[in-house]
């Protein structure tokens, strides 16, 4: 029986792994002709995984979650919530990819397969309750990400991005692993519960170093300042659909992982890690905002914007209570919609041959040549800036509300004032599209898949998205409660 529940709890991962293997074979034998079919099947598998996770999340008989495989893995509401987000974001990134790659020397079946394995890794990350599981999940996701970044083999920029990501990612993994080994050495356990229990009393220097190294490694993965340097380069160089993927699914997984480690493992030493996360949060907000100001390239700009957003997500973590964790999850959901929408918007800035345009000069006057797209981007940008009545405001709202209610008023005030700096470049986006003379280079049309994703994301961030807030509130609250029970 214990075995059955272990398999049932990991159903989503098993489904995706099997799908990945089968599709790998299919892609290998039938060649590039079946790439579209593989993509569609992979998409279906991801959506199936999301539905399965949703069932686990809402099924009352699994209210309390449960351990699988002898405490290496835990199924709980927190993990399920993060998985739904990860799977849906991955599926959306599959929808937007084929057309882009087909126009640049062929689309291959590896792409959806890599995304599938990446998704397996990510769902292991969010459900891991043992440092070994955590590391395996993280590496599985990272390795497929490195390949994805370099997916356009003939493109120098893409190759450069892949290499850069690999070298820096390996360094971060090393730091993380070193931190884990320190924790193991000073606590004698690799399970979250074991390490957490051993750290409950006084914190030894070795344990403190372990915390610092683990958090530094994770900060790299979520691209929080001061470990954010790779982000603009990799985001700029990687193919745009891949960038959209990096900005969403892996980030959700890494943030969820960080939250679980911080709350469950280091829960008893919250004074120690909260300072670190607080610093990282404020630095991310400020650097993300200031760094973006001088950017001409829109992908780099969105990279800085994602650093900025991670800062706000970390604010929810700093609060270190149920409200904070719930706020963080709500923010993640909205962040995924906003990022996907804006990257898809960039993908649609193309001429009739399919060449992409990605600087401010190119989108100038977009509102006269492509009004519908310009209005969608306008909503997304104001949403990223956190201006009501768009849903991006709600994301900031819940995070800051949690911050203030936890008594961190001054911290919240500084962070919110810094968010105004960020508003500057988002409204610059709007200014270029709406106030400047048309450049007229964007002549191509987006594909149906692009429009579909853009429309869904825009609808979510539009004021109509507020109707989602009660449901989101309930689910995120459930997930956050699960995280807190465990710690």
């Amino acid at each position: 029986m214990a075995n059955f529940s272990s398999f049932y709890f990991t159903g989503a991962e098993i489904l995706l792994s099997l799908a990945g293997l089968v599709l790998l074979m299919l892609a290998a034998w039938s060649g590039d002709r079946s790439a579209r079919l593989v993509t569609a099947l992979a998409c279906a598998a991801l959506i199936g995984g999301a539905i399965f996770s949703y069932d686990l999340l809402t099924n009352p008989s699994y209210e309390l979650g449960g351990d699988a495989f002898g405490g290496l893995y835990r199924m709980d509401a927190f993990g399920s919530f993060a998985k739904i987000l990860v799977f849906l974001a991955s599926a959306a990134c599959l929808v937007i990819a084929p057309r882009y790659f087909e126009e640049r020397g062929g689309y291959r079946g590896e792409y959806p397969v890599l995304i599938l394995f990446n998704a397996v890794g990510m769902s292991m990350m969010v459900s891991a309750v043992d440092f070994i599981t955590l590391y395996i999940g993280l590496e599985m996701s990272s390795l497929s990400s490195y390949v994805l970044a370099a997916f356009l083999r003939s493109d120098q920029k893409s190759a450069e991005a892949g290499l850069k990501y690999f070298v820096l990612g390996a360094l971060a993994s090393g730091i993380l692993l070193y931190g884990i080994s320190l924790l193991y050495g000073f606590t004698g356990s690799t399970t979250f519960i074991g390490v957490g229990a051993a750290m409950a009393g006084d914190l030894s220097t070795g344990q403190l170093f372990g915390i610092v190294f683990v958090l530094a490694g994770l900060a790299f993965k979520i691209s929080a300042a001061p470990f954010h340097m790779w982000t603009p380069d990799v985001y700029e160089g990687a193919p745009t659909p891949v960038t959209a993927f990096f900005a969403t699914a892996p980030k959700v997984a890494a943030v969820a992982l960080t939250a679980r480690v911080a709350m469950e493992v280091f829960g008893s030493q919250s004074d120690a890690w909260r300072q670190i996360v607080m610093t990282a949060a404020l630095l991310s907000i400020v650097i993300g905002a200031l760094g973006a100001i001088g950017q001409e390239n829109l992908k780099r700009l969105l990279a800085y914007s994602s650093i900025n957003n991670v800062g706000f997500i970390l604010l929810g973590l700093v609060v270190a209570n149920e409200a904070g964790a719930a706020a963080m999850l709500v923010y993640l959901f909205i962040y995924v919609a906003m990022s996907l929408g804006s990257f898809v918007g960039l993908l649609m800035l193309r001429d009739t041959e399919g060449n992409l345009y990605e600087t401010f000069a190119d989108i100038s006057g977009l509102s006269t040549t492509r009004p519908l797209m310009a209005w969608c981007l306008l909503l997304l940008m104001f949403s990223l800036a956190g201006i009501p009545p768009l849903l991006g405001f709600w994301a900031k709202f819940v995070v800051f509300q949690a911050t203030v209610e936890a008594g961190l008023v001054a911290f919240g005030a500084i962070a919110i004032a810094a968010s105004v700096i960020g508003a500057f470049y988002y409204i610059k986006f709007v200014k270029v599209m709406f106030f400047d003379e048309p450049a007229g280079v964007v002549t191509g049309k987006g594909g149906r898949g692009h429009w579909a994703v853009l429309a869904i994301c825009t609808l979510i961030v539009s004021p109509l998205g507020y109707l989602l807030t009660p449901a989101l509130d309930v689910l995120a609250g459930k997930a956050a409660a699960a995280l807190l029970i465990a710690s």
Partner: protein
Amino acid sequence: MLSIMLLIPFAAGFACFLADARQARWIALAATLADLALGIMLWAGYDIGGAQWQFTEQADLFAGFSYALGIDGIALMLIMLTVFLMPICILASWQSITRRVGEYMAAFLIMEALMIGVFAAQDLFLFYIFFEAGLIPMYLIIGVWGGADRIYASYKFFLYTLLGSVLMLIAMFWMVAEAGTTDIPTLMQHDFPAGAQSWLWLAFFASFAVKMPMWPVHTWLPDAHVQAPTAGSVILAGVLLKMGGYGFIRFSLPMFPEASAQFAWLIFALSMVAVVYTSLVALVQHDMKKLIAYSSVAHMGIVTVGLFAFNVQGLEGAMVVMLSHGLVSAALFLCVGVIYDRLHTREIDRYGGLSINMPQYALLFMLFTMASVGLPGTSGFVGEFLSLVGAYQVSTLVTLLCATGIILGAAYMLYLYRRVAFGVQKNADAAAMPDLSLREWLMLGPIAAAVLWMGVYPESFMAPMRADIAALDARLARAAPMGDSLLEVGEPRTAAANQLAASHGEGESH
């Protein structure tokens, strides 16, 4: 009822997106007129002396806050101002806007919905959403359809107001956590600890002072006004600035009475500077719109002095100044727009002697100039007089300095009028301009009538607000500062001061 008033402009706004230029104009006009009709029904249906909050609606649509609407007399009058000015704005843009008309009209209609929402919101966060959301359409209106330097102006407008508001949001979170409710009427009765009040008050002040605008954070206003299209200036001056005053009267004063008393000196100091300094700045302007923009800052100084006088006269006066300024400055911007449409310049020197070739225009312009100066019989007089009477009970010095603002106001307005309307016709093209068209009469005529109505019989406008202002006054009584004028209380009257027509009652204490 209030929801319908919000829904009509929203729906019409979306329709305008899809419509061509001609259709968009008519849709916009029809929607704003429908809202005006609803507004009149609202006023007619408002039960003076009835419940404090009327037309309330409530729906739990969202997590964390609720969709709650309702108005008191103060909100009613400001909503009336909004729906009254909107059709006029649409008319003012009828011919001058030729580019992207559908989007322009959509921006204005959404703006209207948001402004009504600000005044009708009964939930703290709903208020904030409406309050901030106005930035988006206004940013676009200034940026897309504005003058030469519009980009700088739009950035400045956006970032100034955003920075002001975010701190208020933090304060709101704290208040909601402390009081356990987001309901504005409940919060208005909640006594926050005196120590925390100071911080909360300052956070709200940061937002409202920028919106108001008070010296020294007023500098976005002249830029935004000058660069915005005529109708944009009308909305800015007519309604958006009133949000600051409304904020003070709805939040700062009733929610933090002690802190308001504590910081009254700050308000007085900034208002005095604003009144004198911006009036002097207005004197030397060459650009008509800039001159009127600076005069707005000066008038708003009188509003804040009245608000923080902590008595009925001051509060009523402040409200009347706000309403009157909403009409008069809107009308003055329209007057500038009328001649700008003909000659495409706002330079005062390019005009002259307009009363010869445009007598009707000169007449209306004269009326609004006088109303701005505060001539008895126009709306400006009633409000400024009451405000200063209120302020006199608190500080004679402040009143003295602010009263000079009225003299200076006469100076710059009459100087403007002389240069534009009188003298010789030194420019041939200005001399050849035709007089007001029917459309322009339809814009300016109703405002002129309203200005005179408010000047001659202000009771119509003050009656709905009386009970609310009395309630606010009672709430503030415990914190009211000791005045330096030490008025001798005369024979007791048979009725309270605020039950008489206020402008009569106050003659005695003067």
